[in-house]
């Protein structure tokens, strides 16, 4: 995305990777222990994938814009594995403490284990002193020193002295940009206007941001980016799973900036809401679930709406039970889980039930039809009766 800024002299070109929100050590409740372990490993593997991208693209360095760890109190195994995976990255790596792993007292960054195992080419941006990974290129971090700062976390960096003439400066920051924040009263928002002014003035040439798990270009400059999380963490995220390849160059007309997403993620977190009304709709659901690729690394948050005959309910359960075994997880989306039983089901009429049992059946059926509070329970009881009386054979 070409851009012209003054104060730069031709000659410098730099290529680096921008990542963030690794959230190492994160656990997802919808995953079982086995899937949880694979998911955790995938987040560590993503580091190696980033290293591979760096090697392939000859990136000069990698910046990770905060939330490297999901929490300051992560398990030591997570730290050790991260350190191990970082060895695979063939260029300098700059890690920025974010809100999840802020430089508060007792932070993961202060742990002796990290100090002992962090590879030498990896540096934690504990301050805003410019680093120079390449001649004419500065990396300036804006670390979170507490998990609840009371001001724009990058403001100080923007106010600092500009880079030397002809130099390029990469800001590594973390936090929500005010233009995207739902709560503008939050004090720790990154204000977009000053950031864009700094870019326009040539004090900053690229803002590598973290916090937002969706890959996002902020504003019109093309130089403010959220890289997004390398492995998805929530179904709502848009374009997660990438690392950004950033190419900055100074030319005769000013500097240019090109940003290219590179895929590193292996997991998918999907949201799916289906309407059911009978066997055909269940067939469609079954088919959809069956068609998804790479199920072992796919999580489906499933909503089901509609009403089914008792047998259909039973089939839905069986169907989901079976697919749950194949997928990393199929999460029932409570908010969108509203499936009833069809009370005038002819199959109930055909059940070989007489006497008091028939009376009980009819009562339950009536309750289901009434839609009262205990209708769901009555429907379950009705389904059970249907099964026990041989209807579900």
């Amino acid at each position, binding site marked *: 995305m070409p851009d012209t800024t003054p104060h730069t002299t031709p000659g410098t070109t730099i290529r680096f990777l921008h990542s963030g929100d690794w959230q190492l*050590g994160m656990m997802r409740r919808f995953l079982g222990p086995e899937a949880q372990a694979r998911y955790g490993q995938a987040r560590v593997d993503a580091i190696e994938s980033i290293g591979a991208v760096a090697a392939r693209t000859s990136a000069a360095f990698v910046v990770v814009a905060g939330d490297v760890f999901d929490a300051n109190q992560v398990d030591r195994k997570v730290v050790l594995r991260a350190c191990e995976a970082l060895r695979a990255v063939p260029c300098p790596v700059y890690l920025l403490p974010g809100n999840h792993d802020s430089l*508060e007292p007792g932070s993961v960054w202060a742990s002796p284990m990290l100090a002992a195992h962090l590879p030498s080419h990896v540096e934690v941006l504990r301050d805003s002193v410019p680093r120079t990974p390449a001649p004419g290129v500065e990396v300036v971090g804006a670390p979170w020193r507490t998990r609840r700062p009371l001001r724009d976390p990058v403001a100080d960096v923007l106010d600092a002295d500009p880079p030397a003439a002809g130099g390029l400066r990469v800001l590594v920051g973390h936090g929500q940009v005010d233009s995207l924040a739902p709560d503008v009263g939050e004090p720790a928002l990154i204000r977009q206007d000053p950031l864009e002014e700094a870019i326009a003035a040539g004090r900053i040439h690229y803002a590598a941001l973290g916090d937002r798990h969706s890959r996002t270009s902020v504003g019109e400059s093309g130089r403010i980016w959220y890289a997004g999380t390398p492995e998805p963490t929530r179904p709502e995220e848009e374009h997660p799973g990438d690392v950004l390849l950033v190419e900055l160059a100074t030319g005769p007309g000013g500097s240019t900036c090109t940003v290219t997403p590179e895929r590193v993620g292996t997991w998918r977190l999907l949201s799916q809401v289906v309407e059911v009304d009978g066997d055909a709709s269940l067939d469609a659901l079954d088919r959809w679930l069956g068609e998804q690729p790479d199920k072992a690394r796919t999580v489906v948050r499933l909503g089901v709406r509609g009403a089914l005959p008792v047998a259909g309910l039973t089939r839905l359960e069986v169907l989901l039970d079976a697919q749950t075994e194949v997928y990393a997880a199929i999460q029932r989306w409570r908010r969108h889980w509203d499936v009833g039983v069809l009370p005038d089901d002819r199959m109930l009429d055909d059940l070989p039930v007489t006497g008091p049992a028939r009376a009980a059946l009819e009562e339950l059926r009536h309750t289901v039809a009434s839609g009262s509070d205990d209708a769901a*329970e009555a429907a379950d*009881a009705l389904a059970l009766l249907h099964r026990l009386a041989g209807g579900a054979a």
Partner: protein
Amino acid sequence: MRLHRLTLRDFRGVATRDLDFDEAGVTVVLGDNETGKSSILEALSLLFELPDDSKAGKLKAVQPAGRDVSSEVAAELTLGGQRVHYRKRWFRQRLTELRVDPGGHTWTGREAHDEAARLFAAHVDGSLWAALVVGQEHALAVPAAGSVAAVLTALDESAGGEVDHGASVPLVAAVEREYQRYFTRTGRPSGDYAEAISRRDQERARVADSQALLAEVEQDVASAERLTRDRATMSARSREQEARVAELSDRRQSAEELVGQVDRLRRDAEFAAAQVESARAEAERRAALVEEVRERDRAATEAEDARLRTAAALRAAEQEWERATAALRVARDEQAARRAEVRRLDAHLSWLRDRADLARLRERLTAVEEAREQERRAAAALDRANVDEAALEAAETAHVDVLAARAALAAGAPTMVVRRLGDAGVELSGVPLEEATVEREVTVDRDTTVRVPDVVEVTVRPGTGAAELAAVAASAEDAERRLLAELGRPDIGAVRQAARSRVEAERALTVAREVLTRRLEGRSFADLSAAHDQLLARVADDEADDIAEDVPEDVAEDVADDETDGGSDDEHVGDGVDRAADAVATLFDPEPLPVRDSSAVKESLTVDEPTAVKQPLSARTPLPGTQESTREALGRAQAEDVAAAKVLAGAEATEAGVRTAFETARDEATEARVRAEQAAERRADAHATLDRARAQQGDELLTAAVDKAMQEAAAIAADLAEAEDAVSRSGAGELGERLAEATTLRAQLAEQVEHLQDELSRVEGALERAGAQGLATAADRARAELAHVEEHHATLERRALAAARLRETLERHRAQARLRYAAPLRDRIEALGRVVHGPSFAVSLGADLEVEARTVDGIRLPVSSLSTGAREQLATLVRLAIAGLTATDGSGVPVVLDDALGWSDPGRLQAMGALLARAGATGQVILLTSAPDRYVGTVPGARVVRI
């Protein structure tokens, strides 16, 4: 089933018994106790139950006690419409025989036993048998009709097919199984469901625990952040306080310096006050001295007046020898005047010398650094100045004696005047007269020779009177000399001087001591020395000025010489002696005497006296300024004195005849002259003292010194006031408190900083330890686990609630159906009961068709609360009702009651009898009893069999 006949052989206590029972109706078997009524039921039971070779324990009890015989039971009954003959023998000659009619099928042995059992099971409902064939031990138990299959069958039949046992039972069982997958029989969660609940609760607790740990960490983080901030704030405050303490400390030091200055100034002020005092004292002494001079002047004038008066009186009294007497008086006066002049000059000379001494003394006194030395020297001088007041008095007396003797001698001895006229040498008493034409007048108080060698020798001998007078004078002079020698003084002047020196020395000692005391008080010796040097230099300058202005050069030179000599009292004394010697020498100088300004003497001399005494004298001068000129003047005065004596001798020679009168007048005149001389000497002394004092320090200088001391004192007082004001302004008093407060606060702040640091270290240590524990991961894992467990629990719960809901619904409907279904049984029980208990009798039945409660006359009692009789009656009623319900088909069994209704009153027994009879109408009723009156007569139509 119908029992027709039962035969027992050697069964328990029964040897042989045959019992026949009617096909229908009531048979009462009446027998006493121990007659084997109960054995009937037992035999019937064992017959079908135990094979003939059975070794069952309960069989052993059947064999008659002590007899090794076989026991045999045979029964004839109807089963399923067939006539069955069944016989069995145990123990010995065992036997089992079965024959079934019609058809006459026969089985023996084990086959017979099995076939009989099969027939019994097929045609006799065991539950019904248990309900209706009742041993006496069960008589009180109310049977539950629901457990009697035959009853249920009967009820189903009466329900007309609406009750669908066949279809529902498996479903009910399946629902029950499903229910019991989740719940216990008492409705508590069980199995997987209970485990899921338990796991969920455990996981919740784990989550809560891990959350609590995390919350602790977060608290620690917040607290560490707060502590860091607080520590920074406290450190800043601590540093501020440090600066404040330093500032206050500096200020206090300055204030202390001010206070020190005030102390110094106070000491200076005290010293200045002493200086003022000293200057004033000096001024007062000067005033006293002036007053004394005035007094001496007056006294001298008076004495002179007295002398003139006596002279006039002498002239008046001695008319005759007026001229002689006058001449004598004049001569005497002249001589006295001359001598006074000599004394005056001599004294003046002493004063000049003394002034130099006093200058040195003053210099010494002001030499503060030598104050101790001064004191010691003053004391030494005091020791040496041995002329105290008594000695002075003695010397004065001796001196007056000498003067008196000499005066007498002068008046009484002849005088010889020798003058060399030519070149021939003339010796006067062996002494050559060197100059011609010079008269030498000699008082002839001894043999005196005038010799011109080779020419003449004239010896003049004094008269007897003169010799005596000379002896008196010599004696007086001897006495004075001895006294002077004793005192070590050459003359009376030296003695007086020594006496004054002693006074001075005493004062000097006192002053030296005072100065020493004052000077040393509160001050270092070096300070004093420096101050004194300064003062000394200044005084020396002043002194030099004064001397230059007021004192002739040679005095100044003397002073200067003495200064350079650093002379002592001894030297002064010595010097004094030297000067006295000078003066004595001057007495004999041939220089002319200075003429005293006395017009009366001049007048008288010009009229009558020979010219010898009127030789021109050197011009008379006022008191000279230098020692040299003084010595010259003294010489002149002494010469004049000699001349006067010569005139006096001439007068005496001329007027020898009037000696007596003259002597009287002479005595008076002598006395007046002595007095005048004395007064004049004293005046001269006073003047000399005053002049010396003035020469040392003029009056104006004394006043100036007082003024200066006062000014200095005022200046110091002003400085002191200013310094005190500065101390007051500096707030020296409160500075100490403020500094103490500030220091305390600084210590507190430092302590707080240290405390905060400790806290911070502790929290950071805790955080570091927590950091190594992976608490967030653990909490996440626990939450994930909880989510799963909750999911699992929710699934199970849903299933459990579905099962519970289904079971409840099903059971409810079944219970309702059962109530409808049990209605015929209830109706039958109540119909029978009303016969016994009246029309209000009602029962309520439970789920198992058991009687739960009985109501009579509106009083509902649970079965357990019924009396024994009532319960026995109720049990019998239920049995009869069951019998009634089941009697309709062939599967019915006889009602056999062993020793029942033993608790019923006769009225109830009568009613029960009627019911038993009614039961007998539709079935076989066998009543075993030992009480003949219980049934006999109460059960209409009953056949009684006695055993």
